């Protein structure tokens, strides 16, 4: 009975995983197919792979766009993590006047629909002569990422018993040292979670990127959308580019997977 249950459970898990992974598999396969194989009905699963799509992708503007995406996402994530955890720590550890209101205000920035601010942002950045620059997108992404980081990190800091920090204070550590040497290491899972979500959010963002960049600072999602030409869509190229674009996130997720699992289950620390 127990074994049956276990088999059923594993079966269900595999089924769900397959369901979610199938599109991914499809894209990976498509990236190695020729145009003809791509459009074959019924689809072929066994074929002679070609690297032509990847070669085409690397010859296009795509590597530059990926670089832009990575620079913008990494910068905005680093800034958001630093400012976000400091702010969260402040909210968590010090009594701040109208703290609840301020926290809600920060959260409300995340509820803002991007479409509502596209035009004002465009005008502001045009006035600042920052259109089509990395800085513009970094700043804009920080807006949503910081508020996210504050909320997630505050939860993690709240979970750290105050006594751990008091013990360090008695040992002669100054408040900044207590933050760096006690609070941050204990909120590792929160840092990993926040980093992943900020990265994904910044790498995937499309609307603001397409509005605020034209060429120099164009990000990968914008570039991908432009593969659709008058000549139709080059699905092979698009698939290859998508696969390349997925790699950094996959690598990072694998690196921090342990922290991430703890982070998602909201770090039950003991």
């Amino acid at each position, binding site marked *: 009975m127990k074994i049956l249950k276990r088999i059923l459970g594993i079966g269900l898990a595999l089924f769900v995983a397959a369901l979610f992974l199938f599109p991914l598999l499809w894209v990976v396969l498509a990236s190695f197919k020729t145009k003809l194989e791509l459009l074959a009905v019924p689809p072929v699963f066994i074929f002679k792979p070609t690297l032509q799509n990847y070669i085409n992708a690397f010859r296009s503007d795509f590597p530059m766009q990926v670089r832009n995406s990575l620079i913008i996402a990494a910068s905005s994530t680093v800034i958001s993590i630093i400012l976000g955890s400091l702010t969260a720590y402040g909210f968590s550890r010090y009594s701040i006047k109208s703290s609840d209101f301020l926290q809600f205000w920060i959260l409300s920035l995340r509820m803002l629909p991007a479409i509502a601010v596209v035009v004002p942002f465009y005008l502001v950045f045009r006035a600042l002569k920052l259109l089509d620059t990395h800085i513009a997108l970094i700043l804009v992404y920080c807006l949503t990422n910081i508020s996210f980081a504050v909320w997630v990190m505050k939860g993690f800091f709240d979970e750290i*018993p105050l*006594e*751990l920090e*008091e*013990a*360090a*204070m*008695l*040992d*002669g*550590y*100054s408040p900044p*040292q207590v933050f760096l040497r*006690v609070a941050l*290491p*204990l909120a*590792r899972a929160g840092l990993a979670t926040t980093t992943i979500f900020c990265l994904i959010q910044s790498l995937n963002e499309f609307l603001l990127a397409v509005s605020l960049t034209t060429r120099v600072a164009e990000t990968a999602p914008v570039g991908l959308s432009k593969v659709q030409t008058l000549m139709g869509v080059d699905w092979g190229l698009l698939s290859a580019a998508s696969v390349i674009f997925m790699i950094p996130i996959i690598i990072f997720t694998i690196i921090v997977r342990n922290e991430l699992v703890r982070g998602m289950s909201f770090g039950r*620390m*003991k």
Partner: protein
Amino acid sequence: MARLELEQLDCWYGKTHAVDCINLVVEDGELCVLLGPSGCGKTSTLRMIAGFVQPAGGEIYLDGQPISHLYPGDRNIAMVFQSYALYPHKTVREHFVFPLIPAKIPGPEIEERVKEMADFLDMHDLLDRYPSELSAGQQQRVAIGRALIRRPRLFLLDEPLNNLDEHLRVEMRANLRRMQQDLKITTVYVTHDQVEAQALGDKIVVMDMGHIRQIGSPQEVYLYPNDLFVAGFIGTPPMNFIPCRLERMESQVVLHNSHFSLPLRGNLVARTASLPDGQELILGVRPEHLRVRSQPAEGTMPVEIYVLEPQSNELILDLKLGDLLIKARNDKREFDFRPEVGQQVWVEFLQDYVHLFDKGTEQRLA
């Protein structure tokens, strides 16, 4: 090693007066126990000494120097927290090293001190373990080691035995006492457990509602409680309280209430000499100062056995005296009969140990 002095120390949490202008001196090398029920202000006092809470008024002196304006880390005070406050991401060795870093102790000496502390606590085999891999007793030793490795002037303990099971608690209690006496370190120990306080303290400070009710040696607070609160808080089972009135009749002084009358004898007569006739009193007598007999004798009172609570070597009897229930605690060997529930027996008050409290002020009169 240091002498700690609290002067008019005051603390408010919002509208709660947590500590109300207390004065206290802890002598060099002394172990002072702050004892009281939860919310009595004992932990707040400790936290003010450590520097986590800023006092609303008053001053804390360590070796004559005011320290209440200092950052906790600049006071050279160490503390063992109730939860031990161990870092889940650090090994035992790292716990020992951690306090030595801000103190700028040179590397070789750090090694030496860690080794010394591991010897002292018998923890050599555990140095590379994480707190989650240690038993509760071992965790506590790590917390003590981390606190003492800096060689602080003052050692604070906040209910350190609370998280241990009964058996370990008694063992660690003795260890703590031994350690404190070996190191001769001035210590403030917070607990709500009066047995622990009796066992450990050189000096017991009984607190209630932010006030100090009594300061004294374990014997003093047990034998001569200042007021009803201290009398009721120290000792298990707690002291019996019987409301009564003092009456002088001819040559006799008698304590009266509707169910009993107790003619006073011996030095209790002298102790009550200054009390006016008709004074409303509360008689306090500890369960161990009642003797239960099967036959009436001089100065005994008839009572009915209501409940029997046998202990390993003692018998606790709940006795019905009119509508009052009083407890007696006697050595089993003292009984020359087999007590049974419902049985009529006679109880004798050992008058040398009877206390009289003023009904209004609750202060001890005699």
